[in-house]
């Protein structure tokens, strides 16, 4: 990532998921219109992560933005453009309304989380590590299934919500899955994410990962529609993505299967374990449409 490009992710627990969803629907137009006017903003997105499992009983509000320069300089611009909408949404997380741009900056910087950027650029060391990890797993068992998937109702709710989201290049794809209950899963996941950061300079073009409590979140602004992106990523980054998602529930990583089968498993998982973005902006998509 170039030094001038900053990415920030906030993930805040929401008290009432339904009320927050309605608020997000109300503020969507105002947010998207405001974001489109902000110079130096590359992408931004608000999404509500559902509380669809006993392990995650509370919904969470996700805010992501990628921008040029420092947060100290960018926060006042963001506050000036859409401060009211931000206040209305963050109120559902229990945060007090920001009285000025300074308070808004302090709130953002206090809650910003670290993400693992992801790139598909080949890396010798990473490839070697992945190969060794696969060999280790192959020796341990042929098929690796960790924890149970989402229940059918929760999965259907996700599919229905994502199905009604606009399908166009640049619409964020947001994958959310629960981390497997095994004690070693979290450590393995962190190690896999650390490995990804070797090729972080193309992060904006691909995806970024975030561990939040029991959830693993992946956010991307693909240049094509979600089905095409899922297929392409499954083909080009099968080992990388499998080593990450294999530590979550619902994904079946079968080392004994042929590559094409494993690709399809990953593709279907990526399509099914999505949640829709409530409001979004992607400068690249706007340029593409123009």
């Amino acid at each position, binding site marked *: 990532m170039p030094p001038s490009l900053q990415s920030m992710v906030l993930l805040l627990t929401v008290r009432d998921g339904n009320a927050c969803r309605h608020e997000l629907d109300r503020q969507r137009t105002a947010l998207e219109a405001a974001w489109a006017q902000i110079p130096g903003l590359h992408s931004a997105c608000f999404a509500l992560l559902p509380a669809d499992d006993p392990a995650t009983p509370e919904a969470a509000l996700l805010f992501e933005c990628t921008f040029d320069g420092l947060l100290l300089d960018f926060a006042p611009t963001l506050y000036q453009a859409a401060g009211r909408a931000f206040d209305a949404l963050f109120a559902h997380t229990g945060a007090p309304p920001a009285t000025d741009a300074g308070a808004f900056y302090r709130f953002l910087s206090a809650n910003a989380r670290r993400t693992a950027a992801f790139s598909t650029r080949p890396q010798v060391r990473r490839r070697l590590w992945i190969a060794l990890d696969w060999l280790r797993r192959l020796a341990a068992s042929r098929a690796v299934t960790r924890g149970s998937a989402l229940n059918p109702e929760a999965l259907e709710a996700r*599919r229905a919500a994502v199905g009604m*989201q606009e399908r166009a290049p640049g619409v964020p794809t947001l994958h959310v899955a629960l981390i497997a209950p095994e004690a070693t899963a979290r450590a393995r996941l962190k190690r896999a994410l650390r490995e990804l950061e070797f090729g972080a300079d193309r992060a904006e073009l691909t995806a970024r990962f975030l561990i939040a409590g029991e959830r693993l979140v992946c956010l991307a602004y693909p240049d094509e529609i979600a*089905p095409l992106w899922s*297929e392409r990523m499954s083909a080009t980054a099968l080992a990388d993505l499998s080593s990450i998602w294999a530590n979550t529930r619902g994904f079946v990583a079968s080392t004994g299967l042929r590559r094409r*089968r494993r690709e399809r498993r990953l593709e279907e998982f990526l399509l099914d374990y999505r949640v829709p973005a409530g409001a979004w902006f992607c400068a690249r998509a706007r340029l593409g449409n123009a």
Partner: protein
Amino acid sequence: MDRSDIQGVLLHGYRRQRFARYHLLSFGEGEPRRALTRLIYDISSAAEPRAEHRHNLAFTASGLRALGLSPAEMAQFSREFLQGMTHPERALALGDTPLDGAQHWDFAGPSQPRLDALLMSFADSEARLNEWSAQHERLFERFAITWQAQDAHRLGSASDPRPAREHLATRTQRVSRGEFVLGERDTLGERHAGPFVAVKFSARELPVWSAREAGLDFGRNGSYLVLRKLELNGEPLRSVLFEEPARSKSHRLLRRSRHYDGGLWFMAFNADIRRQFEFLANRRLPARIRVRGGAYLFLPSVSALHYLAEPGA
């Protein structure tokens, strides 16, 4: 592969049968099961020798429900099929514009009778097609089934007697049968089993029993059928060609499209609507082309048709 259990239209393009008529059926308050009991003997399987006429039958989700499949059995069908093409989610997935909306459709729209089944009749002459259609329409009348008949003809000019090379045909690469026929091995070597249904007592041949699922494999030798009526408004046929990604064999469709005056009856078979048809169709059609109707249907095997015609579990 049991060709005698597969409906003919799935494996054959019926090139000799230039004339086609699609009866779009609404069961309403009628007696579809009794009608099916008689209609079933006219249905052509893929194993039948060459004939002057062919008939094949497919159902929408509402049609299968009306013929007695339980909610638990229906839930095993694909999500896209159960929602139907008029569902807003599917319209988004297909990239339909508001002008392509179901309210403008000639059939299966909100202002039209519900589409429950599609009877496809093919014949080598118009006279023979009319003769068979009259016979079937008498049957529908008798069992209080309403219908709308729409004509189509084989792609290619009438002056050219050679079988036309279909503009929308699948490329000649080898594609596994499982991409179109449920229960066969697909490109990845996997078999798609189900939906499974409860046992019925019958002297007729019913779908294959699956001990693992403790039910009859209703889906085996069947396929999902996509039907779209496209008004071309002067656009060339190639403009509705859904591009197939070169690297992948997993998005193939088996096409059985035919012309009508001013447009195209796009018809395609696939085993997975989301992965195959919707993946390829997700792009805007040229502005002049309008969608005039459409549906997701299920083309059962011959034994599954017998199962549906049986009175009860």
